[in-house]
């Protein structure tokens, strides 16, 4: 399978007053094309931070120390290292090539804009040229109209057509900048917004929102949680994204809506031929939707395997403990002993050794490296063996 994203040695640290927080340490991760990769782990283990690092959105005082994130935007060209791009280049990738769905759908929508406007914004940001063409086409169409009114407004329409022609001809000309930036003149470009609005409605239909024309005119507070989540997904996918990062998208939803959302993401993923990085703390959800799963603990990945392999045959003691901790009917859930280590004072050696039942001398001294125990099943542990 072709690779889409290759993370190597990603290290993120936060320089706080209390000391250096080693939030991510030497994270290695591969995501293939058209694959759903699950990232599971406890709260605060660095799942979300990994996602933010991919988009280069690590909040200060955090810093990406070292590592590389190679992204393969299409099959023809070679990879780009997201960490060495300029701010402008990474902005062009955010939202068009890689986009995100955040955990809390009601917080991820701006309360002062309608749903349609917010979805249209993504299109306006990334597909300006396509929109220019469409707007020009629409302007030409309206020129062809006959009748008295059409005759009267013909000069206006002609000027409009010329304006769009200019924009199509040279997207970044001085003229387009002037018109695009000045609030009153921006109204002249209403056809572009119109076209973006049409695409937004199309996209709302795509995410199975009933009566999309109406919902597009709604403000976020007028929608239910499930509808908001669908709108957020629509916003993320509207630029035919190649790589979707879903950061606990179903956590805030109730179980029936959760199932619908999972189904939706799965269907859209196939339809748009994109890959998904699915972050969750819910092992059941991960088992449901993912092809491969990585387990994270205290800022590093301890096990990566195909989903059936991982659930049938967990190797790392942390993965085993995590699965044992899932409540099952008729059984007492078993909590993992000890506490998550303080990220400022991480234990030496393997990060899990203070809570591990099978830890030995070497675990306290050396930090384990990732080994492939069986094909496609990686584990970072000194003790456990494959098979």
């Amino acid at each position, binding site marked *: 399978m072709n690779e889409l994203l290759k993370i190597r040695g990603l290290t993120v640290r936060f320089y706080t007053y209390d000391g250096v927080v080693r939030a991510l340490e030497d994270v290695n991760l591969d995501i293939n094309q058209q694959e759903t990769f699950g990232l599971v782990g406890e709260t605060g283990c660095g799942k979300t931070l990994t996602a933010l690092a991919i*988009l280069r*959105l690590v909040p200060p005082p955090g810093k990406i120390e070292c590592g590389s994130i190679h992204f393969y935007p299409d099959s023809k060209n070679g990879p780009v290292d997201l960490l060495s791009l300029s701010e402008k280049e990474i*902005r*062009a*990738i*955010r*939202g*068009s090539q890689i*986009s*995100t769905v*955040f955990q*809390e759908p009601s*917080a*991820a*929508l*701006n*309360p*002062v*804009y309608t749903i349609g406007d917010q979805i249209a*914004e*993504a299109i306006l*940001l*990334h597909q300006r040229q396509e929109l220019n063409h469409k707007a020009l086409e629409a302007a030409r169409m309206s020129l062809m109209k006959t009748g008295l009114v059409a005759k009267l407004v013909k000069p206006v329409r002609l000027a409009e057509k010329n304006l769009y022609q200019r924009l199509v001809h040279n997207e970044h000309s001085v003229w387009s900048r002037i018109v695009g930036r000045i609030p009153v003149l921006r109204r002249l470009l209403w056809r572009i917004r119109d076209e973006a609005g049409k695409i937004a409605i199309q996209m709302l239909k795509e995410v199975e929102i009933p009566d999309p024309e109406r919902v597009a005119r709604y*403000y976020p*507070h*007028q929608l239910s949680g499930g509808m908001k989540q669908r709108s*957020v997904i629509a*916003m993320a996918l509207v630029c035919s994204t190649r790589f979707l990062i879903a950061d606990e998208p179903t956590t805030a939803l109730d179980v029936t809506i959760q199932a619908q959302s999972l189904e939706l993401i799965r269907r859209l993923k196939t339809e748009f031929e994109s890959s998904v990085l699915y972050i969750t703390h819910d092992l059941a959800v991960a088992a449901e939707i993912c092809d491969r799963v990585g387990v994270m603990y205290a800022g590093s990945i301890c096990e990566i395997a195909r989903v059936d392999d991982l659930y049938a045959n967990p190797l790392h003691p942390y993965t085993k403990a995590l699965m044992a901790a899932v409540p099952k009917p008729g059984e007492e859930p078993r909590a993992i002993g000890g506490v998550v280590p303080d990220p400022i004072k991480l234990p030496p050696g393997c990060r899990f050794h203070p809570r591990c039942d099978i830890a030995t001398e070497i675990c306290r001294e050396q930090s384990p490296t990732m080994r492939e125990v069986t094909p496609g099943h990686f584990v970072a542990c000194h003790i456990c063996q494959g098979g």
Partner: protein
Amino acid sequence: MTELRLWLHQLRKNPLSVIGVTLILIFAIIAIFAPILAPPPEGHIDPYQIPRDGYSPVPQPPSEEHILGTTQGQYDIYYGVIWGTRSAFQVGLIVMGAILVIGIFLGSIAGYFGGIVDEIIMRVTDVFLAFPALILAMAIVVALGPSLNTVIIALIIVSWPVYARLIRGDILATREEDYVEAARGLGASNFRIITRHVLPNSIYSALVMASLDIGAIVLAAAALSFLGLGAPEGYADWGQLIQFSRNWIVGIPGNPLAYWYTVIIPGLFILFFVLGWNLLGDAFRDILDPRLAKR
């Protein structure tokens, strides 16, 4: 169109805001139609200069010729208050507009980027806020030479720091919202995030305060005029008219209300103007908040 109807509906629900809107509309009409309501006499060069009828220092009561009487120096009070409405709007709107532009610009830079930029801008506002506003305004007017323009400049200089701070505080809260992060994840630039996502969500308190403050600014300008630090003598300005009446407020022995018209009439204009803006501020709050709308 539906938006407009909704606004009107919101307005109607609060009778006080209707009063505010009505007051301001009346004043706006007075200001716009000042040349018709109080036509300048022929040969008059500057319409803002109140025409005078003689040089007697004693005010004259309302008569057919001067329907609201004349004040000290025989300046026509009716002409003064009508054209003074224009001055009041000029001072209020120009000062508020400038303050908002400066406040929004500096406040959003400070709040959004934080760090050293924030530190510098906020310490500058501290310096300005350390002085009593009216005293500082007086000092500036005296330094620059009294005129209506210097009053405007002085009021801008003393009032912008409050707005820069207010907006900065709101932006600090808004920039942490998830939808700002989401916009960043969508590939929006800093400029776009500030103008489209952060400001629209953090500007309400500033706008409401602005409409409340226009009244206060006109009041401050009137106070400066009253102290003799405003427009030149004879310029149509409410503060100036009250200053003219300073010696006549107490009337004459046995008849304290003898010259009531010199102080009551410009006083009422100021009172209703300020009241109108204050009530309008409440109306703005009801209208502008999209979370309150459509319920």
